[in-house]
């Protein structure tokens, strides 16, 4: 990764799901360069995070395609346009610059400047699901965490990990060697994580290097945000204490609108109203496409987002290149489009 923190480009796309990716294509055909920001660590959005293996049946031209295949195909399709991705980052704030361009700042401190912003954020940012335990907020960020940013932070800690999926099991195995003590708590004695990491965990238990609790956390104990223990309870049995100073909870991700709500745009029930000619928001130069926008008759379908990106790109062109004339061309016949796609020599 480059150390560079400030970028200038033509279009900044918030969200690297299928619609954000296809927007790169439509913008690219019209000579606009794009940067994409996504909170996930890879492209594909919901298709990659929620249902990579599930077949989708309503993508035009594909009777059946998985979320991951669709993502891979889109990545291949936009390759000629060399988009720049900023993964693992959340679009945090948007400000207008003196020259009329927009500056997007991410939670990692990266700034991106461009005349056009495209919000293709789907259902919002994928954020950790939080269990319903009283006073949880008091401990968050101090002794309760939903992700591991720096492994060393957990050295010498009495760690309790909650969950039964890959994140929970991977971090149990990974942090055990540096922890003072390690315990895993899960609601049942069955784990959906990769069998390999489950057997590693069982080996650690056999070696008496960690504990496993088949129970639910019902209470937290501590003071000033510092956890000292939790109360756990197994179905129909008596509650008991587990001593720990760190809780890592891995209950999967869910989508939340997040900071986009504070971008100063009109919102309607957490969706961004747009017109159906340009898919522009209440702010000129800020567009919204895909599941996150709304207009009369809106259908939350990937194919609707594809259509919206094509029309958005037309207006984006007029903003990015105010002095150029826009000519509508087909990829099947235009030699200049084919050149951009790197397929010029194939033209008949």
């Amino acid at each position, binding site marked *: 990764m480059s150390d560079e923190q400030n970028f200038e480009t033509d279009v900044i796309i918030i969200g690297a799901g299928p619609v954000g990716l296809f927007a790169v294509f439509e913008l690219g055909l019209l000579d606009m360069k794009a940067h994409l920001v996504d909170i996930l660590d890879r492209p594909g959005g*919901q298709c990659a995070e*929620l*249902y990579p293996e599930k077949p989708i049946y309503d993508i035009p031209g594909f009777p059946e395609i998985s979320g991951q295949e669709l993502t891979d195909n889109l990545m291949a399709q936009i390759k000629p346009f060399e988009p720049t991705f900023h993964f693992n980052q959340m679009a945090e704030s948007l400000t207008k610059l003196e020259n009329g361009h927009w500056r997007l700042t991410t939670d990692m401190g990266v700034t991106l400047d461009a005349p056009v912003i495209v919000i293709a954020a789907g259902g919002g940012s994928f954020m950790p699901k939080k269990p319903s335990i009283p006073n949880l907020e008091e401990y968050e960020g101090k002794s309760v965490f939903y992700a591991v940013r720096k492994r060393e932070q957990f050295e010498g800690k009495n760690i309790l990990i909650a969950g039964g999926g890959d994140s929970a099991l991977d971090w149990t195995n990974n942090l055990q060697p540096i922890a003072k003590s390690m315990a895993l708590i899960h609601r049942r004695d069955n784990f959906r994580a990769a069998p390999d990491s489950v057997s590693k965990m069982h080996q650690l238990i056999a070696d008496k290097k960690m504990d496993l609790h088949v129970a639910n956390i019902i209470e937290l104990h501590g003071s000033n945000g510092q956890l000292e223990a939790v109360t756990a309870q197994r179905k129909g049995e008596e509650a008991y204490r587990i001593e720990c100073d760190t809780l890592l909870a891995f*209950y*999967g991700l*869910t989508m939340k609108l997040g900071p986009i709500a504070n971008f100063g745009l009109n919102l309607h029930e957490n969706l961004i109203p747009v017109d159906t000619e340009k898919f522009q928001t209440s702010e000129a130069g800020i567009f919204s496409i895909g599941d996150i926008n709304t207009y009369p008759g809106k259908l939350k379908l990937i194919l609707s987002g594809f259509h919206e990106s094509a029309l958005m790109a037309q207006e984006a062109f007029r903003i990015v290149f105010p002095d150029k004339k826009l000519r509508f061309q087909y990829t099947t016949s235009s030699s200049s489009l084919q050149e951009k796609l790197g397929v010029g020599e194939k033209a008949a």
Partner: protein
Amino acid sequence: MQIHVTDQDGKEHTLEGLEGWRVMEIIKDYGLTIKAECGGACCCATCHVYVDGAWVDKLHAMRDDEEDMLDEAIDVRDNSRLSCQIIMSEELDGLKVTLGGGTEID
């Protein structure tokens, strides 16, 4: 065919059941708040419901993927199910469920 759904605020609604539809879809179509963000693919646990005691045993047994996905539901109880995995049919006429943890939209 009807289903009775208690929402997150404790209010009960009577919905017309649609043969062959997923209970999640019926709830969503009626306009109640249910996140159901993966759209019925048994991939997110945000259509989580608590099934009324009398109905628990009348539902078909949970498949492994539903049980797995419940690991990511919030406040799981013995009568927890994912409503996208319950298909409406005549036998379920009168089904009673309560919207569970994680179904709120925020």
